[in-house]
């Protein structure tokens, strides 16, 4: 089976499975402290921001319903959005996969004659490995979001949807700025300390020249309104406004699931997103633009609509709800697994609980990493509780585990296919088959239970063979001296059988 090319810096096929990566990251005391500090800070704030709205449950239900409806009529709304954007002066391009999106954007940048672009933080462009593709074509992409800048300067990978450098504390950020800023442009100010305000000032100075000279910008979008052709970018720093306003050409790469039907629907999502994401009543800056405006902002606007596995997820009746996601990252911030393992262990642009359900649906479960992601969860359900569009993440995790263990019908790059069960689960399947046979044969069950009871003192504390990994982290249950059936026979037998 072919794997969907994703263009990530580390090919996922070569990436270690989640348990191996997590085993390493959980040993990193600094990383764990950074993550614990950051996620606990935001948890309490988010809860307070949500508690301010007495109708949160209704907003959440409406958000889910709007997204569900859109997904169920996605073809209609995509065509409507395309027509509206075109009528407003934009150009619409369609990309079936990462390679097509890379090729379209590269061509559009080349057509301008520019060799440098500024970028607004965008999950879609991270997902398709756009920066690497542009670099291969001789085009330098400058990340302008503070956290993305930290990641880019540190030659690092993002580890969080909202705060890609969440794994870095302020002292590490200062060191990265001091060491690497000069190589990319204006160096860090002398005597830079680790005060967050000073670090923000250093980023401001470093990027100002880039904004003023940039001719091409690349962005994603939080929402695309089909009815009006309006794109919405929600941000904090003003780097988004800079990129969306100052350059002559704007290229926005937008996943096809970002479309919403109507202008009015923004009233739901603009209440859900900031409070879930940064725990703010409203984020500092929200930009909305519809095509091009004469004399204000970019003269050329290109919208690249990206599939890259989204239609494969759409084909799964349980899994398609993952496409409701508005990328707020609330599920990351509450997840006990994410807090300890960190974002890099998930091996894709989408870490945390949402990544554990999105990545295997976008890429398939063929690689060891992608097949392990549905297991990167304790199924505690905290992610579902905080999700502003009520994605039942545990339900999809279980669905994907079933797919990994049992195989079955899936859609891969638009084509229906039947995948075989994963190899690693042969022992589990054999055990389940044996159990099914035993429970169907009462005599065998009774004989087996007797044998196990009689020999209970001799049982090892850990399993051997394929069961060893299971008992590494679990106590084996103690076998009682008699089975329930024996106890029933002994105490109630005469009446029961009379």
């Amino acid at each position, binding site marked *: 089976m072919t794997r969907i090319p994703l263009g990530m810096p580390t090919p996922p096929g070569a990436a270690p499975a989640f348990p191996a990566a997590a085993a390493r990251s959980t040993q990193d005391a600094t990383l764990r402290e950074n993550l614990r*500090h950051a*996620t606990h*800070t935001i948890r309490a704030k988010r809860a307070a921001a949500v508690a*301010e*709205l007495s109708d949160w449950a209704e*907003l959440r239900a409406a958000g889910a*319903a709007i997204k569900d409806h859109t997904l*169920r*009529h*996605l*073809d*209609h709304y*995509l065509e*409507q959005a395309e027509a509206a954007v075109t009528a*407003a002066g934009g*150009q619409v*391009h*369609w*990309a*079936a996969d990462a390679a*097509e999106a890379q090729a379209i954007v590269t061509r559009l940048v080349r057509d301008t004659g520019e060799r440098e672009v500024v970028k607004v933080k965008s999950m879609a462009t991270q997902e398709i490995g756009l920066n690497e593709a542009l670099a291969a074509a001789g085009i330098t992409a400058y990340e302008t979001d*503070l956290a993305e800048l930290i990641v880019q300067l540190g030659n690092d990978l993002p580890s969080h949807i909202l*705060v890609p450098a969440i794994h870095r*504390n*302020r002292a590490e*950020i200062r060191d990265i700025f001091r060491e690497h800023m000069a190589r990319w442009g204006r160096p860090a100010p002398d005597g830079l300390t680790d005060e967050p*305000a000073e670090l*923000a000032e250093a980023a*401001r100075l470093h*990027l*100002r020249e880039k*904004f*003023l000279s940039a001719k091409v910008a690349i962005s994603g979008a939080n929402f695309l*309104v089909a009815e*009006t052709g309006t794109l919405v970018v929600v941000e*904090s*720093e*003003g*780097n988004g*406004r*800079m990129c969306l306003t*100052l350059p002559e050409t704007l290229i926005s790469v937008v996943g096809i699931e970002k479309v919403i039907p109507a202008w009015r629907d*923004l009233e*739901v999502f*603009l209440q859900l997103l900031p409070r879930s994401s940064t725990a*703010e*009543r*409203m*984020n*500092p*800056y*929200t*930009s*909305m633009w519809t095509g091009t*405006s004469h*004399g*204000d*902002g970019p003269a050329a606007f290109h919208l690249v609509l990206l599939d890259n596995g989204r239609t494969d997820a759409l*084909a799964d009746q349980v899994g398609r709800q993952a496409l409701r996601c508005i990328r707020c990252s609330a599920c990351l911030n509450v997840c006990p697994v994410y807090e300890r393992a960190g974002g890099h262990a998930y091996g894709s642009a989408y870490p945390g609980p949402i990544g554990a359900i999105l990545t295997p649906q976008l890429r398939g479960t063929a690689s060891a990493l992608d097949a392990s992601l549905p297991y990167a969860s304790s199924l505690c359900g905290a992610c579902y509780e905080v999700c502003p569009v009520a994605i039942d993440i545990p339900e999809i995790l279980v669905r994907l585990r079933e797919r990994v263990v049992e195989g079955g019908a899936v859609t891969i790059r*638009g084509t229906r296919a039947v995948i075989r069960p994963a190899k690693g689960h042969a022992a589990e399947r054999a055990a389940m088959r044996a159990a099914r046979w035993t429970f169907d044969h009462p005599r065998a069950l009774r004989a087996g239970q007797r044998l196990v009871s009689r020999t209970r003192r001799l049982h090892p504390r850990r399993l051997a063979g394929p069961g060893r990994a299971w008992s590494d982290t679990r106590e084996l249950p103690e076998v009682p001296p008699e089975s329930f059936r024996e106890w029933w026979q002994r105490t109630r037998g005469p009446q029961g059988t009379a």
Partner: protein
Amino acid sequence: MVAADPGPAGDGMSSRGRVLGRVRRALADVRAAEAAADTAMAAGPGTGAGPAAEAEAAPPAGHAGQGDAAQDYAKRDYAVRDYLRVHGSRTAPQRVALLAENLADYRAHVHHAHEAGLPAVIARLLTERGAHRVAVPHGLPGDWLSAVTAERVPDSADLTARELDAVDSVVTGCAVAIAETGTIVLDTGPGQGRRHLTLVPDHHLCVVRVPEQVVDALPQALELLAPQHPLTWISGPSATSDIELNRVEGVHGPRTLDVVLVTVDEPPTG
């Protein structure tokens, strides 16, 4: 109508056709369910199609072929909107007070002025911020800057971002302000200027006419705004949460945001 990218595999199908085809195949179960629901509804009332089923029942099968059916179902509401339009009921002064409170909570500097005193307040604030050069959008009411001594830089088609970088402040009005979120919205209308005008200078002074430009809640603001114009929603000065998920004010946008709430009646006391 639109630029479609040729398929790389030479299979004769555009990427547009490929993506839309995949979407339609992925939704085969939805179309089948809708066709069944339509049949049930056509059979008459009481056939078990509940409100939820009705909400998703339209359109008749084959809406992908466009036409009236698609228009028809798109007009129906597809979500239960029993969330609140406004969180609480307020008098006009209460609404203005909440706006001031929430603006200040996100580190905007809030000032009150009576209409007659507005030029003096603007002049004082610009002096306090050390503004030598002030960007002026088209359509700014003539007397607002009557007391200002700083050099005025009028917006014009050839005013570049680099030139704006040498401007200290910008004075604008706004389209609407939202009390519950502490947000001001600019729609590039008269007195607001093109988008870069309020972005590149480090100090933005925004005048809000109260109470008439203030709404309670976000849904009301959306109704007043036209998406044909570029919109900028501003809630406090530029900020970031990127260092340890703590909010720090002051990154790329204006680091100082002064909001002057101007009344035509008596100024609020206190």
